[in-house]
């Protein structure tokens, strides 16, 4: 009996179900608040891509680690490559390209393999506060906090 996972579910079109499962998994393995949101957002984008660009089928596997969780999205289509990840850009003027950017900026580690079975995308999320990660990695954007900004639109 292979139980080297904590949670496994096939990729289906019910994105809300997948988000809820991922949230329960993250929550019971130490993620809270924004980190939990981040994981749900990232997995949702990856699964959406399986429908938009991939094999429209696959498997989600969640595992836990000492300080966080890893969720693997295995796209049966197998078309996702490390080059796609590296090419991810944000272009608010354009029409595409947000998914892989969001995934890479919200997760602590993102990796894609290519196997005979498909292209497993691994998203790792540690339990530490997300702000650290954002300040670390997203020098490209001004990281002003929108919640502060909205309460004082003149700032």
């Amino acid at each position: 009996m292979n139980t080297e996972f904590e949670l496994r579910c096939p990729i289906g079109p019910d994105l809300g179900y997948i988000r809820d499962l991922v949230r329960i998994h993250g929550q019971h393995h130490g993620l809270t608040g924004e980190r939990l949101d981040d994981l749900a957002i990232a997995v949702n984008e990856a699964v959406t891509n399986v429908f938009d660009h991939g094999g429209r089928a696959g498997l989600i596997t969640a595992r836990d680690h000492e300080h966080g969780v890893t969720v693997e999205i295995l796209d049966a289509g197998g078309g996702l490559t490390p080059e796609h990840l590296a090419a991810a850009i944000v272009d608010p003027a354009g029409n595409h390209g947000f998914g892989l950017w969001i995934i890479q900026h919200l997760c602590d580690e993102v990796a894609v393999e290519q196997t005979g079975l498909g292209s497993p995308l691994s998203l790792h999320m540690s339990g530490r506060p997300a702000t650290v990660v954002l300040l670390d990695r997203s020098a490209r954007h001004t990281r002003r906090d929108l919640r502060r900004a909205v309460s004082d639109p003149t700032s």
Partner: protein
Amino acid sequence: MTPALLLHHQYLPGVCVLALAGELDRTNSGELTAYLKRVRRPGDHVVADLADLSFMDSSGLHILLDCHRTCLAEGASLHLAATYGVPVRVLEVTGVAEYLPGHATVQEAIAAVLRRP
């Protein structure tokens, strides 16, 4: 099962106030596109109230940016109100927040829109 997305709108002179509730993702974002197309009158400013929107993905961003561009082309603008939680996270990490003015409340958003017609 598609997550519930509830859409309401209200007209003010020159402004279409749109309230989004529930979860917005790729499985229901087409509803928002169609709704906006149907209810926004040409030239209307748009105030999008996100107070009860508990989830938004990148397809939601694309729709907001499209709406922003349509508004600009007609001399109007799109303002966001009551953004927090997941929607603000997605707006922030992509930098889209910098393009779309945000306000604490719908009232403030409407006031801001009417100040610069």
